[in-house]
């Protein structure tokens, strides 16, 4: 697996910013400008023929705000290699679409756009995928309240704030005892 990393290091010397290995999982953090080239190289030359997932992170309050995550997998020749690729970029910039490299990326990127509001350069079908066209918010952004916001599109759809009655039930995975780790209602907003 480390051969993949060394190949990438040789080929895209300056664009590989960091590398994390955790329990055999390889994560490569790359530069945004070169991300599409690296992903294309991964598929064409390194055999990562399967794009498992495209997702995004919202680092609200720190810069740069957005982070894209690509999960790659190599199925050919009996190989079972996984590679995670990440890059960050600030608000206002568009991400690069990889839907021309893996057609399946189209739907993943539409979901990222729908939930996070990240737009994609080169995505042919740039519509929402889960919420309806005309819904004014991007609900998985960190500054979107958990209960939702009211919206209204006559004849199409509407949304309301959900009553949270004592706050949402959330777990505290790091709490000391099981009693405190269990889901409890917490005041939010």
């Amino acid at each position: 697996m480390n051969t993949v990393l060394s190949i990438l290091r040789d080929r895209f010397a300056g664009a590989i910013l960091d590398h994390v290995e955790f329990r055999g999982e390889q994560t490569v953090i790359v530069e945004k400008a070169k991300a599409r080239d690296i992903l294309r190289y991964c598929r064409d030359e390194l055999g990562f023929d399967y794009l498992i997932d495209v997702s995004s992170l919202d680092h609200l309050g720190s810069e740069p705000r957005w982070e894209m995550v690509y999960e790659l997998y190599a199925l050919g020749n009996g190989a079972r290699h996984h590679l995670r690729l990440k890059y960050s970029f600030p608000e206002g910039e568009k991400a690069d679409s990889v839907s021309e490299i893996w057609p399946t990326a189209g739907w993943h990127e539409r979901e990222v756009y729908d939930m996070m509001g990240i737009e994609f350069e080169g995505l042919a079908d740039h519509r929402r995928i889960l919420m309806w066209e005309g819904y004014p918010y991007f609900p998985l952004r960190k500054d979107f309240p958990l209960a939702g916001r009211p919206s209204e599109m006559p004849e199409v759809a509407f949304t309301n704030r959900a009553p949270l009655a004592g706050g949402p039930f959330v777990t505290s995975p790091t709490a000391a005892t099981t009693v405190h780790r269990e889901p409890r209602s917490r005041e939010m907003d």
Partner: protein
Amino acid sequence: MPETIEQHAAYDSKIEGNIIFTKVDTAINWMRKNSLWPMPMGLACCAIELMGTGASRFDIARFGAEVMRFSPRQSDVMIVAGTVTYKMALAVKRVWDQMPGPKWCIAMGACASSGGMYRSYAVLQGIDNLIPVDVYVSGCPPRPEALLEGLMKLQDKIAKSQSAVAHFNSEKSA
């Protein structure tokens, strides 16, 4: 030529045993409650229990409600089984509006009744925000027995309704 005798059905000794006296309401309600054709609005996991209710082990046919109609025009009771998202909500409302009266609605499970665990931007907090619900069935999802209990509650409700009066009132207002 034999003499014609004016006969009243009730006094005809030959068919007397086949005559039942009842109230119009009772007769109508009896027919309605034992032939409830459901509109299965299966939206999430509750729909699986709804299917189980329709299958042989629980056998919703015992209550005359086995004829699942996938056309709202032929349905009497809408069983909203599952999470109603805002995206689906107006479609559910439209299907409900297409059902001819008299019609009833069963909100099956926590999601359809109140949004359930989905206190979220995407989920309608109870189908009763859009359409009138007759019976709420609790559970996540409810077991088939619970749905059948809800159906029997609905039958009780129908048995108590004043169908004829409602019909004449609607004629008067129309």
